């Protein structure tokens, strides 16, 4: 487990956060009509979405979350365990796959893939056991491997982890593809 990633991610998260805007007057102030991801809060710990948003290695994932309209969902109270493939992980997919998934007509397929990366519940490293099966949000299972302190999910390597307010993010080096439906 590369612990170094955690502080880097955290630093990125803070450096990219919006400065406080205290100039707003009460008359002009209003809560955003957007969902929970738009709540202005520079005090609380970052949630799992903001961790991803503030990481330069996860721009493809964030684009996918936005396209699937899952940003607000993952800003919710959770609790979530999110397996977050890096940009390099997406690049390993066959050419044209990502572009195709981002098309409006692929929204359901994209959501299915993203939901396969999320578990409801916060599973810290010590709770993950070798051979453990996790039933993901899309109702398919992933398999956890844990050998010599190295964690894998469906064979993808966990590169690091970051704790968010509403869950935990595991950074992985491959995109998890749900099993084909029979």
């Amino acid at each position, binding site marked *: 487990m590369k612990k170094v990633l955690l502080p880097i991610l955290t630093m990125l998260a803070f450096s990219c956060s919006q400065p406080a805007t205290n100039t707003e007057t*009460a008359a002009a102030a209003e809560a955003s009509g957007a969902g929970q991801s738009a709540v202005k809060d520079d005090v609380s710990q970052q949630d799992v979405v903001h961790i991803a948003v503030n990481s330069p290695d996860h721009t493809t994932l964030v684009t996918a979350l936005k396209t699937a309209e899952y940003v607000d969902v993952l800003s919710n109270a959770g609790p979530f365990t999110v397996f977050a493939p890096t940009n390099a992980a997406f690049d390993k997919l066959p050419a044209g796959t990502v572009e195709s998934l981002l098309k409006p007509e692929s929204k359901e397929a994209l959501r299915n893939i993203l939901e396969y990366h999320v578990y409801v519940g*916060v599973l810290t490293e010590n709770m993950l056991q070798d051979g453990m099966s996790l039933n993901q949000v899309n109702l398919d299972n992933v398999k956890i491997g844990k050998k010599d302190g190295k964690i894998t999910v469906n064979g993808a390597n966990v590169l690091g982890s970051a704790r968010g307010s509403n869950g935990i993010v595991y950074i992985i080096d491959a995109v998890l593809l749900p099993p084909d439906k029979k």
Partner: protein
Amino acid sequence: MKTITIHRVLSILVVLATVVLWQGCKPKAPGSVTTGDAASQAYVAPGKYDEFYNVVSGGFNGQMSIYGLPSGRLFRIIPVFSQFPENGWGYSEETKPMLNTSHGFVPWDDLHHISLSVTKGEHDGRWAFGNANNTPRVARVDMKTFKTVEILELPNSGGNHSSPFITENSEYIVAGTRFSVPVGDNTDVPISSFKENFKGYISFISIDPADGGMKIAFQLKTPGVSFDLARAGKGPSHGWFFFSTYNTEQAYTLLEVNASQKDKDFIMAVNWKKAEEYIKAGKGTTSKAKYAHNVWDESTHTGVSTIMDEVLQLDPAELKDIIYFIPCPKSPHGCDTDPTGQYIVGSGKLAALIPVFSFAKIQAAIANKDFEGEFAGIPVIKYEAALHGEVKKPGLGPLHTEFDNNGNAYTSFFVSSEIVKWNVKTLEILDRVPTYYSIGHLSVPGGPTSKPHGKYVVAYNKITKDRYLPTGPELTQSAQLYDISGDKMKLILDFPTTGEPHYAESIPASLVMPNSTKIYKIEDNKHPYASLGEGMTKVERKGKEVHVYMTAIRSHLTPDNIEGVKLGDEVFFHVTNLEQDWDVPHGFAVKGANNAEILIMPGETSTLKWKPLSTGVFPFYCTDFCSALHQEMQGYIRVSPAGSNVPIKFSTGKIEDQAGGAGQ
């Protein structure tokens, strides 16, 4: 006595007859008085914010509540003087000391008036003060956390009604007793010895400008009358305080009749700068007094109660020039200074006029010794010498007056159920609107400050009757919001309120909202029983006490399996909320506890005490819907017989019967 009684009956009949006539003039259909665009003026669209925080006393619920204006939406009830099972205030071990008094733990009180802190006469958004009318106390609420952070008891007081009104720079809040009471070493005296033994006291409570800390700076020993309400001077009258009095008859029974004998009671003018001079000169005397001072420590998340034993007093009958009486018609209630500080409005609640006194004239009368005599050794200024003028025939039963930023006053009339607008300088009546029904206090945003924000006046009514869907004999209290931006007052909203509101203040949201606390930082938590991580959780036995160091985070409690408790033990659940996320409290409750729940804010530690009364396994759980797995946030504690040898044991996530398949 008989003739007096007959006179009373006759005068009551006259009042009743006038009320009947008045009612005849009232609009028949309340709904029709609102105009077409009224709803849009009070409408705050989804996602938009109100313009003002409305801080409202809860009266007999002992709390403060926070509404938005102009919407009238209720945002929060802040527990102050009364236990609040909803969040554990007065039930948790940390909050119990906040309700300690010289009489021991007092679980309830009656909060009547709000004072918001001011700097240079204007709202600064730092603190809200409230008074306890029954067991005399004042409280301070921090406007960052909306939490009660200090409660100070008042000795030598029989009921703290004339409170917690505030001076121009928050130097002092005051506390005048509604009941004069016997004081000193021997208070076991006949009630009929009132004139000889009963005294009234006014406390001046200093406010620390840095942290808001309260301290009784001094008490004024005043004649045995009842103090009703008060306001500080401002601008030219800064340094003075004005108190309304009633029962200058010094009656001790059937005040309904016996405290209404005189045609005039007094406004008491206090030169508190003079009092400060006497204290500097060493003229104060230190008297024994027992009272509690309770302070909340935000780093330990715990209240600490200290019993104080003395208080500094001044006797204005001996130390001249501190207080003067001004005659004011018929049991004055409200005693309100206008934004310029030049005028003091007395509202004789049984009078058919409103006298307005001039600060400049009061000063001239004092300089010229224009006195009509003395009352209990205190000079009484001639009524005419202090009078700016009278508002003639304004309505029936004037109670309170607030001000706008254009030189106008708004007076509430209980008996005639209306608000009357009049000009402070000309004393001319400009407008009147009905209220539904029997208004008590009223509030203009910034109304008691040097620079009122104006825009609205809220009527806090005493009688609801048919305003809302009926709910049996007990009804919510009704409030009405009026637009006062034009020449005529316009009813724009009717909204229910909780408790029984008396006074309220409103402050622009921009002065409060940016400072609002979101979370308590976990690294700043100095609670002695805090667990600053799950690794620090444990269960410890100390004799018959079992201390559970527990954490809560989405979505489990650690530990969630506890054994080794024995009958006769007292169990203390010290729960630390490890969340660092805005609006994610966790709650905690255990089956059968003779106690409330506790709600623990992010980063806070709170303790629930439980004394099990039978053996068995008792469930506990998180009571605040925190996450999708909130319902899973639960655990068990086992209680064994007194002599058992079940050891202390605790865990989370440890599955002992794997072979049997549990947890698979």
